[in-house]
């Protein structure tokens, strides 16, 4: 998750800030315009970093919103009178936000390479729209005759035609944008946005509608890009379709990566470095005419070297201690009891086919509340497919899944999770770049999974309590600050369970929770299951027969996708079919009727 900048980075940023504040006193008109351009580009690239670095969405069409912001100023300006600055910039932000909403509604349906391609295509469409039609003077570009100002009565308070005024407005807006995005990244909303990058599947399983979060992040980034575009239009009072071009988008990605994507302040360094480099290499009096003629080669080579030297960008050089802040110790207090959630689970003729393979074949079973139901069967029997159907990761081919009598078959995963069905995954599925505490926090936050949550409000205390409780139950309380991906496999398994508990579902599906756990943790989880079942319905898939026979109230045996036995452990233990298909000599000799 986004870390606070180190003390070193803060010092560098403060020095840069002071330098830029003092700049107008020392440079001429050209220098000031040059600095203004850099500042505006920085707003643009920081806005890109919000989706690129934080949400992990590689948009190759971010310039579309920059362009819309610029053209919006053109549209609200008249030839005889200056537009109000709030109207002009507001139009830029709003126009870009609407464009991002419309484009985002489609592109956020895709992921990976497709996302890159579709954003690129959308931006090219915008380019063509302004290039090939005469809605804004076509390919020649258009002039804004009178730049926006802010006039009250007869006094002009802010005039964008005044270079120095305009410069300071841009500088102030850059600082405000960075702070705003930083704040946003640390809200509950921002936490989920960063979860998109770390693990989308898990977010759905926790009950978050990832599409909505992607779209919201896309619109936020688009709106800030629109602000940058609107300001850009006011530098020269000239807009051109080139503002939409994919060069512009590509350049922004390059500057973000050069500066350090995912830090929100790195992109500022990236812009400064890139633009300075380009200007230096273009100046024949400094580097000679040969280099100046081929300056692109020079920037290219320098970028390659820079990326090799510091894969984390320039911000990577500024890592170090952060300003110490008070850490609230995690106390294991019992969180407030959640409202009673759905609990009775049943399936009717549930089936799933993959091509010709019937992975789950007509399974009908009832899982009553307040019991532990174990599902066992050989590898490949369809157990994991069965849980994927219950949790909505797969759509059933046929049949019903009933939660408290309501058929949820075919619902998307996040809706099923919100109905109170929580699951853990067979292959560890956590937010690897987050700390243990942040992982559990995302799970705890899922009780209110709506998008527009900028503050936890009164729920905060209880969420922290839920996190502390969940971590201490699985024995990870003293690992709260560890980065999850750097822990051992077994510890990550423990975290899986902690997230399930923090998530607070009434029906818990655990897919091989004990795989990878040592004897101590196994005992702890078995104890935990016994505790939890008093107010949960638990579905347990597990190969550890000692544990299964120790906690299970009912046993369901699957083989080749079919239900071959369903009943009490003692009945199932004696079942010939089960012994030959699965148990062999491994049913623990416990209670009466153990096989010889």
């Amino acid at each position, binding site marked *: 998750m986004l870390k606070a900048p180190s003390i070193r980075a803060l010092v560098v940023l403060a020095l840069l800030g002071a330098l830029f504040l003092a700049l107008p006193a020392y440079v001429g008109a050209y220098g000031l315009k040059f600095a203004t351009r850099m500042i505006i580009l920085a707003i643009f690239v920081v806005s890109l970093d919000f989706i690129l670095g934080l949400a992990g969405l590689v948009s190759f069409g971010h310039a579309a919103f920059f362009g819309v912001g610029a053209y919006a100023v053109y549209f609200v300006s008249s030839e005889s009178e200056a537009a109000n600055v709030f109207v002009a910039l507001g139009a830029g932000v709003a126009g870009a936000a609407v464009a991002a909403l419309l484009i985002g509604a489609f592109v956020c349906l895709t992921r990976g390479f497709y996302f890159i391609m579709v954003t690129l295509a959308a931006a090219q469409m915008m380019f063509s729209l302004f290039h090939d039609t005469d809605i804004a003077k076509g390919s020649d570009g258009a002039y804004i005759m009178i730049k926006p100002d802010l006039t009250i009565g007869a006094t002009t308070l802010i005039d964008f035609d005044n270079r120095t005024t305009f410069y300071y407005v841009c500088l102030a807006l850059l600082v405000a944008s960075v702070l705003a995005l930083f704040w946003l990244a640390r809200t509950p909303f921002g936490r989920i946005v960063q979860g998109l990058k770390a693990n989308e599947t898990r977010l759905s399983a926790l009950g978050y509608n990832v599409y909505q979060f992607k779209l919201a992040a896309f619109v936020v980034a688009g709106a800030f890009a629109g602000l940058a575009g609107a300001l850009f239009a006011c530098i020269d009072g000239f807009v051109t379709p080139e503002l939409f071009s994919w060069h512009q988008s590509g350049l922004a990605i390059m500057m973000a990566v050069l500066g350090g994507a995912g830090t929100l302040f790195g992109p500022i360094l990236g812009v400064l470095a890139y633009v300075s480099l380009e200007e230096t290499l273009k100046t024949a009096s400094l580097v000679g005419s040969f280099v100046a003629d081929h300056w692109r080669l020079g920037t290219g080579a320098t970028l390659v070297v820079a990326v090799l030297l510091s894969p984390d960008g320039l911000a990577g050089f500024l890592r170090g201690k952060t300003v110490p802040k008070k850490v609230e110790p995690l106390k294991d207090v019992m969180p407030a009891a959640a409202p009673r959630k759905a609990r009775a689970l049943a399936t009717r003729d549930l089936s799933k086919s993959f091509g010709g393979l019937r992975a789950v074949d007509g399974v009908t079973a009832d899982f009553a509340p307040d019991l532990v139901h174990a599902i066992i069967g050989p590898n*490949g029997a369809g157990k994991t497919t069965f849980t994927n159907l219950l949790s909505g990761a797969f759509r059933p081919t046929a049949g019903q899944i009933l939660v408290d009598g309501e058929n949820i078959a075919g619902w998307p995963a996040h809706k099923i999770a919100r109905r109170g069905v929580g699951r853990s995954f067979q292959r560890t599925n956590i937010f690897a770049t987050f700390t243990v505490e942040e992982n559990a926090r995302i799970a705890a936050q899922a009780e209110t999974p709506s998008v527009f949550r900028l503050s936890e409000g009164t729920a905060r205390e209880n969420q922290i309590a839920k996190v502390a409780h969940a971590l201490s139950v699985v024995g990870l309380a003293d690992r709260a600050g560890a980065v999850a991906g750097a822990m051992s496999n077994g510890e990550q398994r423990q975290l899986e369970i902690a997230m399930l508990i923090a998530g607070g579902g009434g029906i818990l599906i655990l897919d091989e929770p004990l*795989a990878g*756990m040592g004897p101590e943790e196994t005992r702890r989880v078995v104890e935990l299951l016994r505790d939890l079942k008093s107010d949960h319905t638990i579905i347990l898939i597990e190969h550890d027969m000692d544990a299964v026979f120790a906690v299970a109230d009912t046993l369901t045996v699957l083989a080749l996708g079919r239900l071959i036995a369903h009943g009490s452990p003692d009945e199932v233990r004696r079942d010939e079919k089960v012994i030959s298909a699965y148990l062999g000599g491994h049913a623990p000799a416990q209670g009466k009727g153990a096989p010889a």
Partner: protein
Amino acid sequence: MSANSLLEARAIDAFYGASHVLRGVDFRVGRGETVSLLGRNGMGKTTLLRTLMGLVPARGGEIRFDGDDIKGRRPSAVARAGVGFVPEGRGIFPNLSVEENLIFAEREGPGGRRDWTREAIYQLFPRLLERRANWGNQLSGGEQQMLTIGRALMSNPTLLMVDEATEGLAPMVREDIWRTLRLIAERGVAIVVVDKNLDDLKKLCRRHVILVKGEVVFDGPTGELAARDDFVRSQLGL
């Protein structure tokens, strides 16, 4: 280095990010020897295997394999020297068939040995022969594990390192894996195993090493492990 030593690591330190995971670990495997690596979660077992394999850089100390210094070598070079690695989580090629997965790894071992051919692997795991045309992603967990072990053997290693091979497997399949590992050991391949099932490990391995917080706290034969039962149980949390 004694004459029948195959792998000899001395005073190994390794880090995972900022955390100091291995602290001066000495670890030795003789030719054809079977050794278990024990310890609670997060004590450095997997990191030790990964360090020996060259996947995690060793800071300080030395690693010798078959007389050669392999410390700092790339994983591919360590594999060519004769170390086969069966990682936790398997990592088979999902879009290749079972047969293709095996062909991919086919290589002469040290000294031009070709003890392990596809036929030999199919003999060891008849189940893989049945599924040899299936893609990697169509296999059950147990079959994937068999394929990973088979694939490691195709490079004719003199040392096989196996990390949590029985995790997540049904009891009968587990039994299969243990039996196969014993067969592999009988054919002279040295084996290092990380696993949670102490009883099975005692049947397979002659020597046992316990790691606690990145340090070796026990290194001895099965008899001694049994003799110091209380100590072992407390170290492993049994």
